[in-house]
Structures are given as C-alpha cells and as structure tokens.
C-alpha cells in the first residue's frame, strides 16, 4: 500500500515536472518593442553582457541574424534569480551566460520612455534549448 502511494507520488511529481517544463519551454520570447504596453510582461532569451550589482542593472544582447540589439534592464528587488535551477544572487550571473529574462516596461517619468524591469532571470541549459529553432 505504502509502495503504491510512493509510486503514485512519483508519477504525480513527474507529471507536475513535465507540465512545469512544458510551461517553461513554451513561452515565446520577444524583444522589447515600442508597442509593448507598460506593465505587460514578456520573456526574452538573451546573452548577458554586463551585470552591475550596485545599480542592480543588467545589459543583455539578442537580435535577428546579424542585426544585434543591446537592452539595459533594471533588476527588481524581488527578482527571482536562478542559476542551474538553484536560487542565486545577481552577482552569480556572469557575462556570456545565456539567460531567460521575464521583464516588463515600467514608467520612468512623465517625459522619459519606459524602462525595462527584470522580474525573473534564469540561466538556460543547452539541452533545453538545443532543438528549438
């Protein structure tokens, strides 16, 4: 009986993990656009260029073919950061790391364009992204 409930628990865990993985790999990533509404969250897969722990900002790079773009993002105080699946601090994110960022534009003042705020940063494992084209 106990063995059966363990098996069921394992199965349930596997299902939850599978669903979780599907949900993680499913969101399409999109670079910031002027049309993106303030507060509207989006995901971006990109490479970290620089991390400034003092000002809590990151610079990330992505693009289309040879047309690359650099984005500067503020890192929210409550930003969820994970490296290799484990919780981490901002200073654990190194230049050259490929990450998935959840971000949203936030107001930056009456005349300034909205700035980008990262609310989650996680490193991307290659096995996860290997087959995605």
């Amino acid at each position, binding site marked *: 009986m106990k063995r059966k409930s363990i098996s069921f628990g394992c199965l349930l865990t596997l299902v939850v993990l599978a669903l979780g993985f599907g949900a993680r790999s499913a969101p399409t990533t999109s670079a910031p656009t002027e049309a993106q509404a303030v507060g509207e969250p989006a995901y971006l897969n990109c490479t970290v260029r620089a991390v400034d722990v003092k000002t809590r900002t990151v610079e990330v790079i992505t693009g289309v073919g040879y047309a690359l773009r650099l984005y500067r993002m503020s890192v929210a105080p409550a930003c969820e950061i994970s490296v290799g699946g484990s919780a981490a601090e901002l200073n654990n994110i190194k230049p050259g790391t490929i990450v998935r960022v959840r971000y949203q534009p936030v107001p930056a003042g009456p005349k300034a364009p909205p700035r980008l705020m990262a609310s989650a940063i996680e490193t991307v494992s290659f096995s996860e992204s*290997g087959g995605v084209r």
Partner: protein
Amino acid sequence: MSRAAATFAALTLGAVILCAGCAKPPKPGEPLVGLTPEERALFDRGKARFTTVFTPGTGLGPTFNSDACAECHEDPAVGGRGDEVEVHVSAFMPETGFCDPLVDKGGFVIEQKVTPALHAALGIDSEPLPPDATVAHRTTPDVLGFGLLDAIPDSVILANADPDDRNHDGISGRPNRFFDGRIGRFGRKALVPTLAEFNNGAYAAEMGITSPAVPNEETVGGQPIPAGVDSVPEPEINQEGLDLTNAFVRFLAPPAPEKLSKVEKRGRQLFTEVRCNRCHLPALWTGNNPVRALRYKKVAAYTDLLLHDMGPELADMCLGQASPSEFRTEPLMGLRFSANSEGEGEASFLHDGRAKTVEEAIRMHGGEGAASRDKFAALSEAERAALIKFLESL
C-alpha cells in the same frame, strides 16, 4: 491496336520517362527542382525583391554595406558570390571566455557606406571602428542551396559534434549558439540559427532597411541616428517583402553536381584519404519539411556546420560561443564559382579571402585541420593537383 502502334506507344512512353529522368540540372541562380507552381511563383517574385535597389528615399541606410541583396550576391548569377569584403568587430575576454559583439559601439557589422544625409550630419564616410576592437574581414559567399542547409535538423548537426574529441581523431567540432541559446549554422562563425533570420537581419545590418522583424534602425557607432537623417517611416520593408526574399533564397538550387573526370574522381578519393571529409562532410540530409523540394534531400554541402579550432594563424574575432580561432567548416559546394570566377575581383578563399588559390587555402589550415594539411602536403604533385581539381568541381 496493331503491333506497330503498340511498339510506337511503348517507345514514346519510354522516351518520356527517359526525358523526365534526364531533366537538365538547374543552372546557378535557378530554383530547386520539384517546386510547386505556387512556390515557383514565390521564387520569381522573391527574385525581384532580392534584386531591388534601395535608395535613401526608400529606406537605405543611413549606414549600409550595399544597396541591394544582389549587389553583393551576384556571381555567376543572382544568389552567387561577390567580391565585397565586410568589416566585423568584437572583443574577446580571455579571462571569462565572453565574446562582446560591441553592440553598444556599433558592432558587430561595421557598415562601410553612409547616405549623403548622414555624411552631411556627421562628416563620416563609414561607421567608425570601435577602439580596441578585434577587426575581421569577411568575403561574400554564394547562397545557392542554402535552403537545403536550413532544412537540416539540429539533431543532425549535434550528431556530428564531438566537443571533447571522445573518438580521439584530433577533431572536436561543436555547434555555435545564437545569443538566445539556439544552435547556429549560418555565417562564418555559424552564429545564425535560420536562413530567414539571416536574411531578415541582413536587411537591417547590410542595407539599413528596417522591417517587421527588425523594426529599429542600426546605430551609428552605438549612437542614435541624428534627427532628420532618415525620414522614411519604419518599417521600410513590409512582411511580404521579407517573405518573398526568404522564398527566393530558400528555393535557390544548389550548384548542380558536375560529371567528374578520371582525375577528379581520383581527387575525390584523396579527399577522403587525407581526411578532409572528417569536417567537410560530403553529404548531410534534410529532415521533414513543408516544402517537398527540401524534404529528406541529400545535400552535398561538404560541411558539418560545426565550429573547429583552426589555429592561431587564422584566428581573428570571436562571435557568440565561437572563440577567435574557431570557424564553421566552410561549405565547399559552390567552390567552383570562386575558383573559376569570371566576375569582378580576383579569386579568393577562406573567410577573409587571404588565400588566392585553393591550394593556398589548404596550406593555411591549422589547428584541427593541420593533420589533413600535412597529409595533403605529403602527396605527390599529381595527387595534389587531382585533389584540387576535384575541389574546383564542387
């Protein structure tokens, strides 16, 4: 039916079947065999886009390398190679292994031309080179058969990778990855994952043409474009224009295989014997594809689409995960166009055109290519000539 009539019918049928089997292979710049009428129509309309010449009034620039796709990809036909040499930059951080494409300083493509309006505003004739950047030059390859390269599954590329040289053959290919983590295959450093992205990015990076895929203009050395210099509203080309351009490039036929002479056949044998084929894989296979003409096709590209360390002599810039000395195995299909160039400029080989002959290019191989280079050097003069003859037939 009389016996004569039956014989005539049988002969006619036989002739029809024979003719179908002997259809002339496509010439350079012609479409793949087996396209549907609709795909063929897209190819023809796409060719018109590929050859469209842009002006500042239609969105060109303000920084650019060329005013039309076909201005560079032109020899021996539209979609072929060109004599233009680009300037790319990056900065490699050896302590971390990070490669900075210097986007904040205008990298990594440094456009060599500017519009009159930008010249008037800033007094420059090309995008400025970032200080302390590693500068690399890149020749213009042909794009014939690139739709087939695009149709090769990632799994095929990964299957040939051996990053830790576990088979101890001295060759350790590994894939490059784009900045978002996807496996790359296009470009001399195998940075770009798909042909469509390569084309869409080229509109922006090579011609300064914005599109739904790349809606913002390039910077000028990392600085915004001065006000009033480019008054054409974004996007400067619409999605249909991108789709048609992509259809043309995707449906371009690869160079048709030539009938090999006895000497060339011997050269093909030597190509294997000196182990050039370890990186320049003679064939890859496409996977399932919505386009029948691209589905499950053998591609005689002579590449593994992987990065290989080519040694310090050839090293220049880094890009993505590729270190300065790592380059994608250059596809050898279409090498005959460089070797027998009748267009502008002299023949040139390797990523930056430093080799003036095929033999020179082979002798410049270092790193993982050094063993094959040495085996080539040890061949007799006649054998070397045969191998080169074979390469020049591709």
